[in-house]
Every structure is written in C-alpha cells, then in structure tokens.
C-alpha cells in the first residue's frame, strides 16, 4: 500500500522541470546498476561472437592484413570436410552416450543415497565416495585415467590377473576403442552433478504420494514409473539438455587424453575447431566451424529454455 504513494506523486511531477530531471534520473538508476553487467556481457560475449561470425564470412582472417569477403565458402569447406563430418558423428556419439549414462548412473546413485534402508553414516560415506570424481579438475582426471588405462597400467593388469583379457588393451590408442574409452572417462567425471541434482529433487517429492500409491497396492516398479519419474521429469529434462550442451563443448579431456586421435577416432567438434585455428592457422574455417557449433548448441538451448518455461 505504501508503495503507491510515491508513484502518485511522480505522476504529478512533470509540470516542474526540476522534478522531471529527478524522475528521469530515478528511472535511469536501474540501468546504471545493470550497466557494468551489460558492459561485461557485451565486451566478453556479444563482441567476440559477432567478430567470429564476421570472420567466418571472410578469408585469411587474422593471419593476413587484408582479408577478403568469402561468402559461404568457409561453411562449404567445413561442411564437406571429412574430418569435420567424422568429428560431428563422434561428438554425437560422445554426448548422447555420456548424457544417457550420466542420467542412469546419477539416478541410480541418487536413489541409493535417498533410500531409507541405509543408515546416516553409510549414506555420508557413500555420498563422499560418489561425489569424488566431481572434485577433480579435468587435468587431474585426464592424468589419472591415462595412467590407469595405459597398456601397462593398473586396469589391464587387473583384467589380465582375473583372466578376462589375454593381452594388454590399448584403450586410448586403439582406433576401435579410443572413443569408448574417452566416453567412459567423461561419464565417470560427470555423473556426480546429475546425482546431486536428482538427489535434491528426490528429497523434494512429497511422501504422501508414495503412501497413497502404497495404499493402492503398487509395487516398487510401479511407484518408480508412476510417481518418482513423473516427479523428476522437469529436472531430468533440464539436466539432460544442459549436459548435452556442456558435453558437446568438452575439449580439455579429449585434448589431454587422445588429442582427437588415433586416426581421428576421437576427433570432436571442439578439437577440430582448435586444430583449424591454432595448428593450421585457418581462423576463417575455424570460425565457420565455431558458428556451426553455436547453431547446434542454440537448438539445444531452445529446448532448455522451453522446458524451463513449461516449469
């Protein structure tokens, strides 16, 4: 109620020039507060994106003084490049398998931690154990798994001791195995985020729903599919879309484990773009590849925003 009084006085003010200035200043205050953020967004996001889009339509950008307009030539070059198409396919496999596995593992572990069958201390111990991969930086994760999956590493030694394999497997350097090896490492590194988010969502499901379902004589599976999953659906959709976006940008892990090799078996859109820019100095084609990645990401972002609106 008290808030209406100043507005009334504001409406009466325009007749007085001094007050008009005061009103204008007051209206500008919110923009003043926003300006540092807006400035940073413009400088750090809008300008670089516009520049990259501009570069993608020119030839010999950055490395030569006078670049020329090239139309869609860079896009044609990228989209007909076998390495790019291989990278697109690898990225598709990598992100879809990673996201699915993150979801399944995250949900499984979250339900374990939410189970009334486990005591408080046991839950705390498992919570720490399960969240550990999330505490390591990508560099550490890459080093750890390079050592573990080395042909003379612990994993091969254990598998050989158990009689599961006869010879050491070249996990990262076998072209038929490398993509699955890096996907496995990415799954290991990323499931805790799903687990924590889904655990929070599970704890938010009212117990009344389970009690009502129990009264109706449902079993565990029926409660899972008809109570738990529908309640988690908005969180699962949001997390899955976000994970698809984040995983599609994964660069460091690939670069530090396989570098996109062997024989382009783990080449992703991110490593392809990096090589174009910083190895071949083809900044124009790198920009075109980056714009294509941006467009693909925007499709995912569209679904994310839509799911958020629905919520």
């Amino acid at each position, binding site marked *: 109620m008290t808030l209406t009084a100043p507005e009334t006085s504001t409406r009466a003010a325009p007749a007085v020039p001094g007050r008009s200035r005061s009103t204008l200043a007051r209206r500008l*205050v919110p923009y*003043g*507060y926003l*300006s*540092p953020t807006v*400035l940073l967004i413009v400088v750090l996001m809008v300008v670089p994106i516009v520049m990259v889009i501009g570069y993608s339509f020119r030839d010999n950008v*950055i*490395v*030569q*003084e006078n670049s020329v307009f090239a139309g869609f030539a860079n896009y044609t070059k990228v989209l007909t490049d076998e390495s790019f198409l291989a990278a697109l396919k690898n990225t598709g496999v990598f992100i879809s398998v990673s996201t699915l596995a993150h979801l399944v593992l995250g949900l499984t572990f979250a339900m374990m931690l939410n189970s009334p069958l486990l005591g408080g201390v046991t839950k705390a111990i498992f919570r720490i154990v399960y969240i550990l991969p999330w505490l390591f930086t990508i560099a550490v994760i890459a080093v750890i798994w*390079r050592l573990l999956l*080395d*042909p*003379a590493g612990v994993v091969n030694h254990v598998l050989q001791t158990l009689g599961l394999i006869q010879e*050491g497997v*070249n996990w*990262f*350097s*076998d*072209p038929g195995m*490398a993509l699955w090896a890096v996907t496995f490492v990415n799954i290991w590194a990323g499931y805790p985020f799903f687990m924590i988010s889904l655990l929070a969502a599970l704890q938010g499901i009212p117990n009344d729903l389970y009690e009502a379902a129990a009264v109706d004589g449902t079993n565990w599976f029926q409660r899972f599919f008809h109570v738990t999953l529908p309640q988690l659906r908005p969180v699962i959709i949001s997390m899955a879309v976000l994970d698809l976006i984040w995983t599609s940008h994964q660069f460091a892990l690939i*670069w*530090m*484990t*396989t*570098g*996109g*090799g*062997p*024989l*382009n078996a783990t080449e992703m859109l991110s490593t392809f773009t990096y*090589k174009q820019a*910083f*190895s*071949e*100095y083809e*900044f124009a084609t790198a920009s075109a590849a980056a714009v294509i990645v941006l467009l693909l990401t925007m499709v995912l972002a569209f679904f994310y925003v839509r799911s958020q609106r629905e919520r």
Partner: protein
Amino acid sequence: MLFRATRLKRLIGAVTAATMVTFVAACGSGEDASDGTVTLEFAQWWGAELPAGEFDKIINDFTTENPNIKVKLLSAPYASTKQQLLTGAASKTLPDVVGLDGAWVNDFAKQGAITDLSKLMTDANYDASELASQVQVDGKTYMIPVVNFVYPLFVNKDLLTKAGVPSTPTTRTEFLDAAKKISASGGDVKGWVLPLDTAVPNGVQNDVMSWLWASGGSMLADGKPNLTSAPVKSTIEYVKSLNDAGVIAPGSLTMKEQDKVEKFTNGQVGMMIDSLAHINLIKKNKPDLNFEVAALPAEDGFTGQRGIPYASWGIGISNSTKHKAEAFKFVSYLMSQQTNAKLSTIANGFPGNKTAEPDFGNSDPLFKTAFDIYQQGYPANEFVGLPKSEDLMRSFAEQLQLVLTGKSSVDDALAKSQENWSSVIE
C-alpha cells in the same frame, strides 16, 4: 535516509567506475615511465623450466647494467606461452620480447608480428658472426636461438646388458637387433618407444625424422617437400620394421613425450630418443637408473657427419613494440659470451653463442658426452622455419599411424604426405 541512499548510489557508481578504469588500464602493457625508464615485457617459457630464481638473477644483472630499462618476465609453461603468443600475434599485442620455438617463426614472420632482426643487428653494429645459428624467412633473421637442446639416443645400460647386447648400437641393424633382444628379455619391457600423439605431434620431428637426419638425409629439396625420396622411404620402412618386430612400446598412437620419458625412467623401455634437458628429471625420479647417451644410429655403412635433432629456446622482438632498440640491447645481452654460457649451463643446454663455453664442472658427465656428440655432428631440424610446421608434423603423424596400423602402405602414406605438405609449403 534519502541522503544515505544517494551517497550509497554514488559510492557504488564510483566503485564501478574505478573498477572499469582499473580493468581497462590492466589491459595495457608496460610503457615509458615519466623518468624515461622503459619497461620491456618478455614472454617465454624458460623461467618455468629453470631452477627457481636463476633466470631472475640473469635479468637483474641486465637491469643493474641498464638502469633505464626494466624487464618484466611473463613466464608460463611452453603450451600456454604458445597460445598467448598466437593470440598476441593475431591482435598485434605481442609483448616486446618473445621467446620463440623455431616451428613458430615462419607463421609469426608472415603475419608481420615479429620484427626483422637483421636490420636491428645492422643498426646496433652487432657482430652476428658469434651466433651459432639464425632462423631466417626470405633471407631475413627473425629468431636467434639462445640455447639449444639436442636429442641424442638414451640407452638403459642394465637392460642392454641383461639382453646380452655387448655395446650401444651405432647402426640401424644393430639398433633393431638390440631392440629385439631387449623386448625378448622378459616382462613388459620393450626395446624402443615412439610417441605419435597428434595433439602435440613433435614425435615426428624428434623420434621419426631424427633417423633420417642421423644418416645425413633430408626431407626437403630446395626448400620444397621431398618425402617420396629414397632416404625418407628407407626411414619410414625402418620405423615400420621396428613396429612389425614388436619392439615398440604399446600405446604409440596417443603417446606423449612425457609418457616416453616416464617409460624409460621406469625401465619399461630400453632405448629412446629424447632431449638432453630431461637428464636431471630422469635422475631425480630414478637416481639409480644406469643409462648413457649416444649418437643416433645411422644407416649401415654411413660414414658422413650425423645430424642430431635439436630444439631451441629462441628469441625474437615484436614488430609492434615502440622499444626495438632497447629490446635488441636485451637480446644482445642474452647472446653475450658470458651470459649465454651462464644461461646454457643452468638450462643444461648448449649455447647459441659460438664463443660461449658451458661450464660442465658441476654438471652430469653425460652433458659432456652429449656436447662431444653435438660437436662431432651437426644440429639438424628441418621443421625450423617451415610454415605451419606443427600441422605438417600432425598430417605426417596421421599417415604414419595408418602405416603402423596396416591401413596404408609406406608409398601411399608418403605420397599423401607429399601432397599435404606441398599445399602448405609453396
């Protein structure tokens, strides 16, 4: 309340403005001070690889001699320095003085990011005859190698003895024989290690082409690719024969240089081609490892001078710096007989000044052995000064990977590499 709110707004405004000014100011580089002092920014990876504080002492001696010049060191690991310089070159904001790898020079020179040192040498009446080498593009010097690091053959003497190999191999046949015997000596031990990772594809330069150079061969003819020549074919066929014999440590296709050193240090491989700079690292991690360094094996019957691969800490000057004269003064100081000898000694490398003598007094005797090998042969690295050299190495590594996995013949791989390289080296 109104007064306090206004004051708060003003305070926030002032803080925001100050932050912005600071942010913008922080983007600028070292400039002239009001007293005429010039600050040179020097971006390099050397400081990160030298014993703590040693490089600072060398810089302090320079600033003591030249009180009107200050040097601000921008030290970062090699890979970070490369990226920093690439972006700096693109945006014309390179630091005044830059540490360079020979593989970057052509691209930076073509971009106009680094300056022609030949002109600065003439202007300063600098005696270039003291320099062991200069890296040139179109006849102009753009980089001076300050310290050179050679890549000899490292041999685990215990593994060699255990395998019943009487002496260090000096020919390709002897090397293959020794590698086979070591690989057959039991455990997971292999004779040789070949890192062919394509993220940092320098294995092509250090571990593959080194075989070619050691036999006096060349991958270029009149500055153009010559990969289908008999010496190159013989080299790749030899590497393939090592692979076919099963003497190369597994995991080659994604192995990095550090993995190579680690496997040698742990006694998992008997021989490797590696930088002399890693001697201290190996001895620190495994003090009791019994190893020696030797010249790279050459083709059977080869009697000529052997090329020995090397990498350099090179130096160049930004084209956009306002202080070229001061920057060259600093370069001259680093290349002076006394300073260059001192820097080479602490870096465990060989000096870029021909008259400088590294002090082997406190060094490992292996450095003296390597210096003798270096002086008997000649430094060879044909990737230095080539355009997009990392890309050339990567495309070659990919073709070699096809050969080693049986997906391509040596002839096809070399023909494809020749085609790839010819489109880059015009």
